[in-house]
């Protein structure tokens, strides 16, 4: 029996990847998409030759097994409510929400409705990161001491204007680029964040946007591990790729440098007049979407949970508090 999946909103550009990921999985039926912006919905329905439902309600009436929610960050909660009510399992784009309050409500809603909730953290499926995780678990790296990490990118405005709209995105670079590394470290360490310090500025693209474009977030874990995350939109538009995710992990035996997107060809073309990186590594999105589908099929929890999404949002919220106060913030974890 095929697993039927629909996509709710194409506000987030990752929907463009996910739709293709879905279609690449045998036994999955991509039933179509719906978007509250009819023009955007029509555009992507045409582009991907997909069925467009006239509303989210209509999509859910088609009784999909699961949905992927790719709306603007602040609009995840209402779509989660609709989908959960309809009994559809949910893969929600990151960050899970723009506030810890909303993220908690998302997790609770899905629990009450008895549907699976997965947060879209594809880095958990990145093959280089999985390799490091297995070395870590195998004990060959010893105890972890700290991380020096980066998830920098270009200004995402050129992909979607809402990414730099505080009301819809929830913030700027900190909101956009903190959660992946927080999640990776929680996953690696099996420990929760206890303290957050952050600094931010708006020097890159100062005349184009009102949210922070430069930022460094400092997280300390309950087990004593400390880490910095450079979340800046510091990559110029002519950088060879959109950005990247890399970290140095220091352990009692030395250090490991990891770049999740280094498996590239460097390509020079007359057309572009600058080099670009063509990724030949394994697509983490594909593996993530496959896990979502398998979780639905087996009725088991997906490898990334809603709680994982919530914990990352809590760190982001604390980071903004720290930017405001100029002081480290003790993290208050929400009980579930």
């Amino acid at each position, binding site marked *: 029996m095929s697993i039927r999946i629909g996509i709710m909103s194409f506000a987030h550009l990752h929907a463009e990847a996910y739709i293709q990921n879905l279609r690449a999985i045998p036994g999955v039926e991509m039933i179509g998409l719906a978007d509250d912006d009819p023009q955007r919905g029509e555009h992507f329905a045409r582009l991907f030759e997909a069925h467009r439902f006239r509303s989210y309600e209509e999509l859910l009436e088609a009784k999909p097994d699961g949905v992927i929610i790719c709306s603007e960050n602040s609009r995840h909660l209402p779509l989660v409510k609709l989908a959960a009510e309809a009994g559809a399992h949910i893969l929600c784009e990151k960050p899970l929400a723009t506030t810890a309050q909303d993220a908690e409500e998302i997790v609770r809603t899905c629990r009450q409705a008895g549907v699976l909730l997965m947060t879209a953290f594809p880095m958990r499926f990145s093959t280089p990161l999985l390799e490091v995780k297995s070395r870590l678990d195998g004990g060959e790296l010893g105890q972890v001491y700290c991380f020096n990490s980066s998830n920098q990118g270009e200004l995402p405005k050129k992909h979607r204007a809402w990414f730099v709209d505080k009301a819809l995105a929830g913030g700027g670079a900190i909101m956009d680029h903190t959660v992946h590394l927080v999640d990776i470290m929680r996953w690696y360490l099996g420990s929760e964040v206890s303290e957050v310090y952050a600094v931010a500025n708006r*020097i890159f693209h100062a005349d184009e946007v009102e949210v922070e474009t430069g930022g460094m977030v400092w997280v300390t874990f309950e087990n004593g591990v400390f880490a910095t995350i450079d979340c800046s939109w*510091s990559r110029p538009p002519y950088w060879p790729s959109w950005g990247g995710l890399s970290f140095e992990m220091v352990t009692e035996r030395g250090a490991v440098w990891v770049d999740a997107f280094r498996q590239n060809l460097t390509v020079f073309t007359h057309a572009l007049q600058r080099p670009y990186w063509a990724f030949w590594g394994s697509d983490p999105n594909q593996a993530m979407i496959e896990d979502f589908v398998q979780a639905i099929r087996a009725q088991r929890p997906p490898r990334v949970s809603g709680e994982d999404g919530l914990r990352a949002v809590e760190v982001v919220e604390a980071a903004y508090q720290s930017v405001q106060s100029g002081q480290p913030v003790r993290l208050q974890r929400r009980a579930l």
Partner: protein
Amino acid sequence: MRVGIAGVGFMGSTHAAAWAETDARIVGFVAETVEEAQPIAQQYGAKVFAEYAALLDEVDVVDICTPTHLHVPMILEAAAKGKHIICEKPLALSVEDALKAVRACRQAGVHLFVAHVVRFFPEYALAKQIIDQGQIGRIATLRLLRGSYRPKKPVGNWFLDESKSGGILMDLMIHDLDYARWVAGEVESVFARKVSAVHQGSTVDYGLVILEHKNGAISHVAGAWAYPPPTFRTRFELSGDQGMIEFDSQATSPIESLIIKPHSEAPDVGLPSSPVRESPYTTEIKEFYAALKEGKTPRVTAEDGLAAVQIAAAAVQSARSGHVVVLESLAEGLS
């Protein structure tokens, strides 16, 4: 001009080689023991002094390359005798001591130059020049990394004694803390952590520092004594609103040696090296020498050395307390 060199470890011998390329005369060396200084004195046809005071009496300038905790008393002694001073970084282990040194030299009317050699490394100097030309616009974020293995010493490893070296934040990371200030200007606040403060007895150390500059720029400085010998790696990424500069010592190394060595020995301390015509240490000493002869201001001054100590000391304090340290003005302490 007559030069005396105090300390004959790696830095003393490196500076001696640099002085030998100027027309200054190396008069002599002083070390902890006379024996230690014999070979290098012989090499440069110079004397060995048993006492620092005796060396001072015969020179115009003294180059202090001793362990950090000895810098300030030696500076004070030289200044009292009216001698110019070149001092290895860090200038001192505390702001108070650094101020004392700077004030004493001002009062004595002698020059004091602090050997923040990173400013003389061609890759760092060029990046600064490109930024000053405005090529990458207004600086927003700086990322600096300097990584090596934990310094070893046959006896009495003063690097690992924090009361003598200040530890990784003060000894190693002050290079990049100074560079960050040189490039992005005065520092407003400092937040830092280091592994050895969390894990007593760890065999590796690693420090992280975030600086907020007064102009809004943010610096991220990382320092490692964690890599396998003989690794020495430096990296930086300087981003402005009109562009960015990247550097990685490994990526820009023009030679990759895949020679099999039966017994590979690493030096006591990791050393940065890329083949260039003139050693950055020589460039540094030549510039200090020219400044002494011609009264020109070199690219790094006593006040810079003081400011670097203030940032590094704030990092040490932050790593210890867990709090953000806001820097105070040094103007009052200098007057």
